[in-house]
């Protein structure tokens, strides 16, 4: 019970911070809109549903990356990371709370991005929405974990995409598969399995990322 309260308090802190400063979400929204426009001109003529489905996922992935890169910036700039680590709560609660906050930003960005995609390119089906929901969990869980790693390095923002993209490859396979095939069950199952597997690893090993 105490664990859930810790996570809630930490996540609320991040959401409150975003509500006051408005650093991340407007940037993500603007980015995803610009990416769609760039895609329109990058695609040759009238492109197929298949091609644009792939591009939707590229847009989501890179928008998420933008949010993930910002996730630990306040902690770094205000030097509050040590305070978080020293707080009398389980360290994995920090990861879970950050993931939830990032997930909230990503979902908010997608609430605009998916209708925009439907408006610009092709309609969005139920399977796509399910895939987006499942992929978001994996993207935010793994991405936040790697964000905490990246923020400990000298390279910081530079290194997060390098760490994240190879690990996100299975998400793209599952998500694109679920978007384009007629019976997406297998792909959605794969996404759920990925989420579960990596959530357990992240949860168990976050301690080592933040503690010396």
């Amino acid at each position: 019970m105490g664990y859930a309260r810790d996570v809630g308090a930490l996540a609320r802190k991040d959401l409150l911070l975003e509500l006051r400063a408005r650093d991340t979400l407007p940037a993500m929204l603007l980015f995803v809109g610009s990416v769609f426009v760039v895609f329109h001109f990058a695609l040759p003529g009238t492109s197929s549903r298949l091609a644009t489905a792939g591009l939707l996922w590229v847009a989501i992935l890179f928008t998420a990356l933008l949010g993930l890169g910002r996730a630990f910036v306040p902690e770094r700039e205000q030097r509050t990371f040590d305070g978080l680590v020293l707080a009398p709560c389980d360290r994995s609660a920090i990861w879970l709370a950050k993931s939830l906050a990032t997930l909230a930003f990503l979902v908010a960005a997608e609430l605009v991005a998916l209708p925009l995609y439907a408006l610009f390119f092709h309609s969005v089906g139920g399977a796509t929405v399910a895939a987006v929901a499942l992929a978001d969990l994996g993207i935010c869980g793994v991405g936040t974990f790697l964000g905490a790693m990246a923020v400990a390095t000298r390279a910081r923002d530079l290194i997060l995409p390098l760490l994240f993209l190879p690990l996100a490859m299975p998400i793209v396979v599952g998500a694109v598969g679920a978007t384009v095939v007629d019976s997406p069950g297998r792909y959605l199952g794969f996404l759920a399995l990925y989420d579960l597997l990596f959530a357990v690893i992240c949860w168990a090993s976050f301690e080592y990322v933040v503690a010396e």
Partner: protein
Amino acid sequence: MNRSAATIQAVGRTRISLPVLAGASLVLVTTALAFVFFVAPNDADQGFSQRIFYFHVSIAITAYGCFAGAAWKALRHLWKRDPRADLESYVFVHQGVIFGTLVLLTGSIWAKISWGHWWLWSEDQLVLFLVLFLFYCAYFMLRFSVDPGPQRANLSAVYALFGVVLIPVSFAAIRLSKQLIHPVVFTRDGPNFHGWILVTYCLAQVALPVLAYTLYRLELSAKRLDGRLRDLREVLA
């Protein structure tokens, strides 16, 4: 100081010496090469080019072995706080990336000869190795942008552990994403090759891990010597 000296001695007693290993890998790799070129018969279907498979497959399995070794050492670092495990894990990743690059090269050569293209996305193992190659290259980026110390060891270890989870997950993902073209040598009825082909394959399969282990030990001893030199210099300065 005394304790570490004692550990090094104890390790020295239990391990095969480096010159013996180097000699063994030289003999084994040379014999394997001789078998590949002169003893193994031409493949009825693919001809001479099929011979690259003896090394391609063995190198791939060796690379997996290195990544698994890296993860095992990473686990020892996180779990038992073994002071030597961090460097050992790093050297394993390094060897794994070298052998992984060789997999990509031999795979590309084979794809060019068999299908006329240097790169084929329909090649499961090749695509998997590309993903792993990118993943483990990022390992070096991560490791070398953190100052040496406990935090670097922890981050490296956690990332190396992610690697062994990523291997099966990526493999499943690649299988999901396409149809199967890769020739499958081992089936449920056991290996579908016999005689000299089997002998040659087994020889290569033994030779390359021995070579990898020799390189691993060599790099490890060089890195340890480096570290000790640095310590001595600090003491003197």
